[in-house]
């Protein structure tokens, strides 16, 4: 590509990228407001709201709940959906099963939330309801990422292992997993990330005593907006950004090795 074409492309892309980042940037700036109200630009800058968020239990409890739910959802998601993703990538048959696995992505989360609310009845107040719903919410991405990774495995290696007497599981453990280990790690982090930020299922399925962070943010925005919300938002965005960087790095590490 010639010089001016690249420059034209950059000229168009940069404003777009800045526009994408702008709302997030506003939240970061707002989190440093010294006063009790949100003013842009802040009239006096201070870190007091970060201190408030990290010490007060009204914020710490939802943060802990979120981490707990996210961890549980990750374990469920990894154990249940990683095998499915691997197998769908290795074999060309049964690809129609993908249609089932991608369902939670295409069905609106609100429909799932309300349906589960009605359907689970008393069960929805147990600890498992929310992590389970988060797990299936993240499952399409997990399955697709692993399927993509498993498709890069060459069939000959597996067939050689089987011919020499290995069971399918042994072949996978010995040949597939070492090759797609980064993708597996990434696909374990993905449900964690998605669960932390998931607002809709949490709003409908959480109880007052396992309120997750998005729910707390929601109610604080409705009832008493303060820079604390912006501070929590910034912390959450930074953490999510870091996790995202790790996930993308893991996936790209694998691709670069294979020139995919």
């Amino acid at each position, binding site marked *: 590509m010639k010089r001016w074409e690249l420059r034209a492309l950059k000229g168009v892309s940069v404003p777009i990228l800045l526009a994408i980042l702008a709302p997030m940037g506003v939240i970061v700036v707002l989190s440093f407001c010294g006063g009790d109200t949100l003013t842009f630009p802040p009239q006096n800058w201070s870190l007091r709201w970060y201190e408030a968020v990290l010490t007060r239990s009204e914020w710490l409890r939802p943060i802990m709940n979120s981490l707990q739910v996210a961890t549980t959802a990750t374990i469920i998601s990894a154990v*249940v959906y990683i095998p499915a993703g691997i197998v*769908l990538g290795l074999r060309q048959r049964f690809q129609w099963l993908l249609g089932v696995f991608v*369902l939670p992505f295409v069905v609106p989360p609100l429909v799932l939330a309300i349906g589960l609310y009605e359907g689970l009845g008393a069960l929805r107040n147990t600890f498992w309801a929310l992590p389970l719903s988060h797990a299936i919410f993240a499952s399409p991405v997990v399955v697709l990422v692993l399927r993509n990774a498993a498709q890069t495995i060459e069939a000959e290696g597996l067939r050689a292992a089987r011919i020499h007497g290995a069971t399918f599981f042994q072949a996978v453990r010995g040949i597939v997993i070492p090759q797609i280990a980064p993708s597996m790690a990434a696909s374990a982090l993905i449900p964690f990330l998605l669960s932390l930020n998931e607002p809709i299922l949490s709003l409908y399925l959480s109880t007052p005593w396992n309120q997750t962070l998005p729910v707390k943010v929601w109610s604080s925005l409705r009832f008493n907006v303060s820079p604390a*919300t912006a501070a929590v938002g910034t912390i959450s965005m930074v953490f999510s950004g870091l996790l995202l960087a790790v996930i993308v790095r893991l996936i790209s590490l694998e691709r670069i090795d294979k020139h995919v």
Partner: protein
Amino acid sequence: MLERIRSTLPLTTLLWCSAGLVITGLLVGGAIVALATRVLDQPSELKIIFSPSVQAVLIDTLAICVGTTLVTVSVGFILGVALRFAGIKSLWLILGVVLFPLVTDQIIRNYAFYFLFQDGGVWASLFGLFGVARPPQILYTRTGVVLGISHGLLALSVLPVWLSLQRLSDSELRAAQVHGARPLHVLRDLVVPASLPGVVVGAFFTFVLTLGYYVTPKMLGGRSGLMIAALIDQYINNLGDRLGAAVLSLLLFGLCLPFIALTPYMLNLLERRT
């Protein structure tokens, strides 16, 4: 020996998928069945689908879906092309920025929008700088909701376009250049056709995800929220009408059914690489 290998694998495939199938199937199927049983208790309630308020919201929803799809596809195309031709450092930068809204809390993101565009906010001040007294209204309009949703779903259009543009090899482009093709011709004859599968897939998923979008219309949309999902939420929280909410949820699910059916085909579209 080879026969045995071939014949056992399908069973293994199903076995490994079984846990996932059971859980996904049970929860998604269970949710729909629960809604359906609720509605079947009082089938007469189905008539609210034809009430003027619901019809108006349906039209608004579809308009917003179309608008969002157009915006994300256009911007997605530009950024997808940028990703294709970017150097390593730019690639990481663009990818990071594009993926970032996907992983941030929707509520916080939309609140930033709300804050920017509220009366007396930053948007109004910007126009005030140029002496314009009343800036164009963004909040509580379809445009505002389109912008808010596009911001969140942009990655869904950029990534498929980038993926399908990867089929376009550097040597093809160089060959075109060597043969004297002007950049506009390269764009028209090589880049755009190569990006089409990605554009179609991106548009497809953007449309169906916008159909069910909840947080943005609720925060930026005003009284009716302008979209079905926000309306459903109103039925539950403001009217306490769970039955009506169930009816509308089934309606929303019904609208998504054609997309559910076409999803495997769309995923296939992205996979076909020469």
